[in-house]
Structure formats: structure tokens, C-alpha cells
């Protein structure tokens, strides 16, 4: 009987366990997790902060689901990995022997590198407990400062504003999420945030977090100004949790390097999810993704490979749906470029491919709430960003994923004042009929 060990009970770890179980009913699967709640929706924490959901709703596996999966859940964390001995040390919980191991250790928020970060009231949004702590603090906090770019910083700002906390949102650069959104899109989001009462300060950085009796009392900016606040919420990026792999001598760069089969430099050790830097044969390099669905797919593929069914992971066209300042936003393929001053590491909900500057012409149309941007390549659409009404999102996804030949559409799209939405919709309908 083969013994499987999975370190990390997030979506990649669970998907792997589910996949192993489909092939091997008898296998002994141990799942090591350091979160007391077990498996929950990490992206859902944002909706807990806004008050749209009670916290228990985020827990995904019932007792019955756990029984069905038939894994041994070990509460704790791996302290050392011994690839030669095929063993994982679990501190006080003893040791675990394995035949195949999956590292699905995820990623953690990067700390802000300023004096005062250890004060009570400096928060991040990484785990279940972080979200609960933020809501507890919000009850006795009138003013907060949020720093960072990307989706998580915005979730913090919106969540706190929904809890009636006065939010000051500090942007190090001149606009929100500049490596993915273009200027118009950033301004739309910023304007809507301001309508919710969030005050945005561009070109503003914290030099020091000030405290009184161990608690946050304010911040001092790099311009020397002081601002009183009871909470500082930080989301400047995340870093893969690599310590175990590095100490065991596995090949790593920014993540654990794995091939298309999610296999690391050690044949019996696999990695999936936020911690994995996966080789993409099309791009010819290894890529980090910090999205829920790629993590699930990677976990599933890793599980099949571990159980002996060779399954290459094919990175799909990156696709993320999120809600920015109340607007549904779908990002497909490559839409942006450059860097974002607000992030010192990749953000949650981000993919390195979003930020690849494509050889394409950007076309835009739309008003305040419904906004569309297409990245038009030579013969195909290479990316799109749909904000607000999502009617076009599925057609665009299909056309981009299939790399549909848009030669016939291209000239029409490039005409001045072209109605991009109608053109895409009509083209997609005809394309679908032809394909059927």
C-alpha cells in the first residue's frame, strides 16, 4: 500500500488528495495542515470582512466530506524534510514516512519593512485568524491606514470601510494596481473607492508606525507627516513558503521548481499551488501563479502523477475574476506590463502572465461602470479586461483560449470609434456557429 503525504491543506492539497483517491482507494493519505479550521475558501475572506458572509460559511469540507476522502488529517506543520529517508518531521507530532510527497505549502504575506511593524494593530490578510482579528480590531478602531497594491489591499480597504472604519489608502506609486490595470481602469476603481469613503493618498509611504503602550497610534510618512490611526493593514505581496524545500536541498528559485508533471528535483516530491514555480513549455520558463483555480488544477494533476497516472499540467490562459470596489472584473490572458511600486512581491490573485506586456494594440471603450479593454495581436486576441457588465467575458475567454483567427475582425476593431463590444459579440456568434 502506497503512503502519500501532503503538506498543506489548501485547495492544491485537497485537490491532490481527491485525485489520488480516484485512482487508489486503498492508499494511506496523510494531510498536514496548520490551520485549525481545515479547508476553507481563502479568497472568501474578503466577503467575510465586508459582512456578506458569516465566517463558518467559508469552511468547505464537512465531517462527511472528510470521511468520504478518507485521509488522516494531521494538525501541525512539517519542521524538516528528509528526502533520502522519505520522511517528514512534524515537530511534536512525530514523523511521517512517505512514498510520495506533495508540498502545497502556499504563500505568506510579506511584512512591511519599517519600524513599528510589531505593534498590535498592524495586520495582514493571510489566514482565517487574520480576518477574525481584523474584524475584532475594527470594532474599536475609528481610522485605519491600508498600504499595498493588488487585490488583497483593496479587499482590506473595502472590508474596513464596510465596517465603518475611516480608511486612508496609501499608494506608493501614482495609481492603483499599475502593472495589471491601465490608467483609466485604475481611476475607475479609485473613484469608486472614494465614493465608499476611502481616502486615497498617492505617492505616500509609511516611514514608521507609531505606537503607544504597544498599540498602533498612528503613522509617520516618508514626507514627515503624521497621521493618527488605530490600525495599519498591509498587503504588499506574498512569498511562497519555501523554507522546507530549501532546507532539504530541492531546486528553488522564487518558488519550488517543478516540471510539467509538478515533480521537483527529487523524483518522489511534488509541489503545487502558490509555492510551485511551474515550467511552462510554451513560455519556455517557470511561472508563479497565485490564483485559486490554477492551484486546484495543479493539485489535481500532481495527485494523478503521484498515483502513477502521468498527467502533464498545461497552464491554461490565465484567467481571474475578482471584484474591485464593487465592480466585477475579469482578466483574461496578458493585459499589462511594467512593475507596480506598491508590491514588493507578486500579489494574491495575480499571475505573472497578466503582467507580460504583449505585442498588441490596446483598445478601450466604455463608461464608468462598464469598461472593456482588448489586447489585439496580429491574428488573435491576446488578452482582455472586462469591468462591470460581464456579458462579453465568456465570448472573449473562448476566443482567447482557442486563439481564434480574428483577421477578419481586426480591421473593424481598429477603426476609429469602433463599437468593440458589438463587434466582438457578433464575431463570436459567427465563430461559434462555424465551429459547431
Amino acid at each position, binding site marked *: 500500500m502506497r503512503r502519500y503525504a501532503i503538506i498543506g491543506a489548501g485547495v492544491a492539497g485537497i485537490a491532490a488528495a481527491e485525485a489520488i483517491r480516484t485512482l487508489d482507494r486503498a492508499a494511506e493519505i496523510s494531510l498536514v495542515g496548520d490551520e485549525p479550521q481545515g479547508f476553507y475558501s481563502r*479568497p*472568501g475572506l*474578503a*466577503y467575510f470582512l465586508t459582512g456578506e*458572509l458569516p465566517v463558518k*460559511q*467559508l469552511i*468547505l469540507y464537512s465531517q462527511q466530506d472528510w470521511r468520504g476522502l478518507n485521509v488522516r488529517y494531521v494538525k501541525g506543520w512539517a519542521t524538516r524534510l528528509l528526502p533520502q529517508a522519505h520522511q517528514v518531521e512534524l515537530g511534536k507530532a512525530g514523523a511521517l514516512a512517505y512514498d510520495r510527497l506533495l508540498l502545497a505549502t502556499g504563500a505568506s504575506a510579506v511584512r512591511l519593512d519599517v519600524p513599528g511593524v510589531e505593534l498590535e494593530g498592524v495586520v495582514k490578510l493571510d489566514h482565517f485568524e487574520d480576518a477574525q482579528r481584523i474584524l475584532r480590531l475594527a470594532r474599536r478602531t475609528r481610522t485605519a491606514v491600508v498600504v499595498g497594491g493588488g487585490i488583497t489591499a483593496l479587499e482590506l480597504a473595502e472590508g474596513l470601510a464596510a465596517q465603518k472604519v475611516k480608511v486612508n489608502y496609501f499608494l506608493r506609486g501614482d495609481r492603483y494596481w499599475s502593472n495589471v490595470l491601465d490608467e483609466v481602469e485604475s481611476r475607475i476603481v479609485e473613484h469608486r473607492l472614494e465614493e465608499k469613503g476611502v481616502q486615497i493618498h498617492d505617492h505616500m509611504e509609511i516611514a514608521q508606525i507609531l505606537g503607544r503602550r504597544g498599540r498602533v497610534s498612528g503613522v509617520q510618512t516618508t514626507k514627515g507627516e503624521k497621521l493618527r490611526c488605530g490600525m495599519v493593514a498591509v498587503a504588499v505581496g506574498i512569498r511562497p513558503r519555501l523554507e522546507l524545500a530549501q532546507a532539504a536541498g530541492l531546486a528553488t528559485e522564487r518558488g519550488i521548481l517543478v516540471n510539467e508533471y509538478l515533480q521537483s528535483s527529487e523524483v518522489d516530491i511534488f509541489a503545487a499551488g502558490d509555492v510551485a514555480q511551474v515550467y511552462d513549455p510554451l513560455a519556455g520558463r517557470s511561472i508563479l501563479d497565485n490564483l*485559486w483555480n490554477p492551484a486546484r488544477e495543479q493539485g489535481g494533476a500532481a495527485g494523478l502523477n503521484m498515483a502513477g497516472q502521468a498527467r502533464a499540467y498545461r497552464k491554461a490562459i490565465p484567467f481571474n*475574476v475578482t471584484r474591485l470596489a464593487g465592480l466585477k472584473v475579469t482578466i483574461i490572458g496578458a493585459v499589462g506590463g511594467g512593475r507596480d511600486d506598491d508590491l514588493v512581491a507578486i500579489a494574491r490573485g495575480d499571475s505573472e502572465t497578466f503582467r507580460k506586456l504583449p505585442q498588441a494594440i490596446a483598445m478601450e471603450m466604455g463608461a464608468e461602470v462598464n469598461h472593456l479593454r482588448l489586447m489585439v495581436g496580429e491574428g488573435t486576441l491576446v488578452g482582455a479586461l472586462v469591468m462591470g457588465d460581464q456579458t462579453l467575458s465568456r465570448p472573449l475567454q473562448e476566443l482567447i483560449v482557442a486563439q481564434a483567427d480574428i483577421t477578419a475582425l481586426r480591421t473593424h476593431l481598429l477603426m476609429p470609434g469602433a463599437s468593440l463590444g458589438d463587434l466582438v459579440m457578433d464575431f463570436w456568434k459567427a465563430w461559434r456557429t462555424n465551429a459547431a
Partner: protein
Amino acid sequence: MSFRKFFQPEANRHKVLAAGHVVPEAARCVQCGICSYNCPVGIDVRRHVWLGQPVKDSHCLTCGECVARCPRGVLRFEQTDLFVRVPE
């Protein structure tokens, strides 16, 4: 408000009731559970999405609450032929 207009939403609802079911687009979903939380008859819509299945539960009212509340546009109505009148 006219008599006719007053009853319009209800009429629309019944039209949906008879003609469709809720279908997920799993790639958009992050399992937050807002759909299940807001279902008036307690269907675990989220679980359907995890399994990639349409909501064919006979208790489903097709009220549209899950479709409307989903923050990521995962759910949509898809027409079924079940109740479509076949021309005689």
C-alpha cells in the same frame, strides 16, 4: 403603477421557473459560498460548482438569488428544453 406592471416581476419569475436551471462556470469560482448562504431553500450551490454540476435539484426555485449574489459571475441560467412547448 399600473395593474399590469405590478404583476410583471412575478410573471417574469414564473417564466424563468419553467424554462431554465442554474449552470456554473467553475473556472470563475473561488468557493466563497455566498450562493449557498443566500439560497432560500438551502441548496448547497457551492458544492455543485465544486463538482462542476448544474443545479438540477428539484427544490430549486430558480429564484435567481445565487445568480445575482455571486460576486464573480459564476452562475447563470441556462434554458432547458424540458418545458418548452412543442408546436403541434
